[in-house]
């Protein structure tokens, strides 16, 4: 029964990973950027919530209503300024710039908030769970996060496939020069993609801040798990990212079941195995030039 529980907990953890990963997947799919500051943005979102919520008098659980739009706007602005300037040079510059952002963010947070862990306290909401048997416990909060991840990925998929703006995003991802020729300002489209990516990762950061602690140095671990989810699922496939997150979550929980020290290691091993057997990931099909 404890193995079944491990799998179930893995699926629930996968919801967090998928939420972390979908912005990373989108930015890579559309612009070919690997945003190395992705995990730190989630952490910053946590700190922004910690700072802002007392002033707004909102219940902490609703903090995302304030923080997510801020990050969407911030994402658009950052893309149109710093990230676009680095993209105009070459992809390698973008990698260095986002790495630099990550270092700056981490140290600025350390300076401002010390290295102590913080969390977003939503009180007893976090403790409710559904217990179908004595060995299995389903946290309502984790179930909600998994549900949110499914809804976010599903909406994003629908947005990309059904709306005019989504169509433009796909067109720019295919060929940005040809997109310019049909009158599309690809910089604006990149900005929209970045806004979505930052909004989703802010949501992930807040969810994780409610569930567990975060500290200025939590960013790289967030990034690593998000990156592994994207690669396992396959680049360019949003549902693949969800499956990738769940596969990673299950692998980690089963690893932890064998020996608590193996939790992260088991995830890495599955990641490497998928990379070795299916380099495009489980659902990756697009051949990007």
């Amino acid at each position: 029964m404890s193995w079944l529980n491990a799998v179930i907990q893995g699926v629930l953890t996968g919801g967090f990973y998928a939420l972390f990963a979908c912005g990373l997947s989108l930015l890579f799919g559309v612009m070919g950027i690997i945003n190395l500051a992705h995990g730190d943005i989630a952490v910053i979102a946590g700190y922004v919530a910690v700072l802002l919520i007392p002033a707004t008098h909102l219940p902490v659980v609703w903090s995302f209503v304030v923080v997510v739009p801020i990050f969407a706007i911030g994402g658009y602005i950052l893309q149109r300024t710093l990230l676009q300037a680095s993209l105009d040079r070459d992809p390698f510059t973008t990698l260095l710039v986002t790495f630099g952002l990550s270092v700056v963010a981490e140290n600025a947070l350390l300076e401002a908030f010390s290295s102590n862990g913080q969390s977003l306290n939503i009180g007893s909401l976090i403790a409710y769970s559904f217990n179908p048997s004595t060995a299995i416990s389903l946290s309502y909060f984790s179930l909600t996060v998994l549900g949110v991840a499914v809804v976010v990925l599903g909406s994003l998929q629908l947005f990309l496939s059904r709306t005019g703006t989504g169509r433009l995003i796909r067109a720019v991802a295919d060929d940005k020069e040809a997109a310019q020729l049909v009158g599309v300002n690809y910089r604006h489209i990149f900005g929209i993609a970045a806004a979505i990516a930052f909004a989703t990762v802010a949501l992930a950061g807040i969810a994780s801040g409610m569930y567990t602690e975060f500290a200025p140095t939590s960013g790289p671990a967030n990034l690593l798990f998000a990156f592994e989810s994207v690669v396992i699922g396959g680049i360019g496939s949003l549902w693949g990212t969800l499956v990738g997150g769940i596969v990673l979550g299950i692998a980690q929980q089963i690893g932890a079941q064998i020996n608590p020290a193996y939790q992260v290691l088991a995830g890495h091993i599955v990641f490497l195995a998928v990379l070795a057997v299916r380099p495009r990931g489980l659902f990756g099909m697009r051949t990007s030039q």
Partner: protein
Amino acid sequence: MSAASALLEVDGLTVHHGQLCAVRDVSLSVRAGETYAIIGANGAGKSTLLRTIAGLHRATSGRVLLDGVDLTSARPDARLAAGLALVPEGRRLFASLTVEENLLVGAYRARKGPFDVARIYELFEWMVARRKQRASQLSGGEQQAVAIGRALVANPRVLLLDELSLGLAPVVVQRIYALLPELTTSGVTVLLVEQDVGQATRVATHVQCLLEGSTTLQGAPADLTREQIEAAYFGVAHDHENLAP
């Protein structure tokens, strides 16, 4: 052919690719309703000229004016909105989008005019049945038609066509070129680049020949002799006789 009556005016355009001067002081003026052909061998600077007019390359010097409005420093998307649409070399369709989606993206900043997606389906009836197919699944000729349709739905004043015939079977090329008179009737002015001299002189009202980035010859096709064009195209004087053994 005074400058005042020209719809598209290119004035002393010079373009560099790094150190290389690809287009050297080229001027042209395309009047409304014309079909204007730029001919020249591989590497003569034809495509660079067209891409610079569309805004994809920055000109070192010279100006590009559409109906008197200076577009020299405008971005490509702004030039499209002003009425310049380029069908790029190699089609460059959005491969993961369907045929219909490609056309819809083309209509994103469309000006008012006779063309919309429905009109394109009238021009190319086969597209209706295949509109849900991905562009990457079409043949080269079909892709070329979609690329033209994608540019037309923007209702350009001047349609820039870069090497339509490249990589296509002659019969397919014929069919695509047969479309040009209809476009002219709809009020579209055409500036095209073509390696195939025969094709260009058949459809064009005016041809201009480039050699190593410079204009070597221009005029109405009827006024130019085959020898003149050959000499301008290859850059050799009339010394065929001397070469004969």
